[in-house]
């Protein structure tokens, strides 16, 4: 008798659990208007909402921004998303957690590689502005911006501008030497021999190239000057 009662109780539990699973399967979570990204809340409000945990808040906001265009596997084109609003969200995260490179990665690797050239330039400009605040921590994102400007936008002048900023603003000795040499390699790649040689001379004079093998390698990348064989 008692076993039958216990069995009934377990059956009832199983039935209720199955009903709940069925309900969840029939009513999957949906995002409505996920691609309509409003303005971000104030920084102080976000900090307060996460009990004064700005780093954690930064990651939560990034996950939201990163996934806002995906609607249960149906992706909204990133180009349809308002770039100035995205930049306000990226500013929010950078202000919350200045040590994180996540918003810079999203700007260069996610939003700057899609959309119209104007939209992409907007993202690269933002990366450059934020790079200027902390060049020694944020150089790697400007390196990516050089790549996007050169090979995605095909804007060599913009790529050279960013590469020059890398050469002049990055002073951290822990940063790899190629970061400061990027300007030289870019000019060499574009066949601007005179400029490339001038930059190489500057790097040598500043003591940033110490190894003879490195100097030899860089010289081998230089195109011949016009008029020379």
């Amino acid at each position, binding site marked *: 008798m008692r076993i039958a009662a216990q069995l009934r109780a377990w059956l009832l539990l199983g039935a209720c659990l199955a009903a709940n699973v069925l309900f969840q399967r029939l009513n999957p979570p949906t995002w409505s208007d996920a691609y309509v990204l409003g303005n971000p809340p104030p920084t*102080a409000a976000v*900090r*307060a909402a*996460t*009990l*004064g*945990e*700005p*780093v*954690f808040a930064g*990651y939560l906001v*990034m*996950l939201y921004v*990163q996934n806002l265009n995906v609607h249960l596997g149906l992706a909204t084109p990133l180009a349809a998303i308002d770039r100035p609003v995205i930049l306000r969200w990226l500013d929010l995260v950078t202000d919350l*957690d200045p*040590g*994180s*490179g*996540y918003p810079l*990665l*999203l700007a260069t*690797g*996610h939003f700057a590689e899609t959309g119209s050239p104007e939209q992409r330039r907007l993202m690269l400009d933002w990366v450059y502005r934020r790079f200027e605040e902390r060049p020694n921590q944020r150089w790697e994102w400007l390196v990516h911006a050089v790549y996007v400007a050169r090979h995605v936008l095909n804007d060599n002048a913009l790529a050279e501008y960013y590469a020059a900023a890398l050469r002049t603003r990055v002073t951290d000795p822990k940063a790899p030497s190629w970061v400061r040499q990027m300007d030289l390699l870019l000019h060499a790649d574009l066949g601007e021999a005179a400029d490339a040689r001038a930059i190489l001379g500057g790097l040598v004079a500043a003591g940033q190239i110490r190894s003879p093998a490195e100097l030899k390698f860089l010289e081998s990348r230089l195109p011949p000057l016009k008029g020379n064989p």
Partner: protein
Amino acid sequence: MQPMSRAVMGLARLTLLEARRTAVGKAALAAMIIALSLALFVDRIVLTEQDRATVVTYAVIVRLAIVLILGQAIIANTVRDLNERIIDNFLALPLTRMQYALGKWLGWSAVGIVCGLSAALPLLAFSGTPGRLAWALSFAAEAVVVVSLALLLALALGRVITAMLAFCAMYLFARVGFLLVLLSANTGAVDGTAFERFDARYVQLASYLLPRMDRFADTSWLAGGPIHFGPDILQALIYIALLGAVAGIELRRKQF
């Protein structure tokens, strides 16, 4: 050892036993496993800085969970002592009410410190993470403050729901109080006549009555931010002494 000290230490040991029997350790372990699972999920969905995001997520969740577990366990245990008159048995020993509270505080503080330090153990797996030792010690200090607050509220209010509500409200305000004070200063709420400044002033007044809990176990330490550990210890000492003073008055007034 004096009989009185022996009784206090005996009560502390009994409290440790009580914590073991009421599965506080198991609850803390479950909280750590859940926090770690969520953190590892975050590790899978972020695009970059996986270790940093995992550590930060774990630290934020486990900190809040352990604080709530400690608060709930202490309040439930102490209120039960009061309601079931178990406290009378203790007070039949050569113990004053303050010594009874001291014995309980020592026991629960030991539980809090063990929970705080244990919560930091999973961080050992993230070898590149800075500030792990400072975070662990700071969290242990926070746990002692939390224990003291929960014990005082339980003894003073004598009801689980009321004490738990007061505990949550005070802890949450202690975490975000500094932001409210900053907001009131930045938005000009502290300007104007005395009447106009009233609401900004009571936010400031409330912040004077509570500890700066945002200073403890700062997650930014684990994310490469500067570590300021000394002020935490000072804040913990000041606030534990303050709660001790309040307990001295409350327990003299109280009729158990």
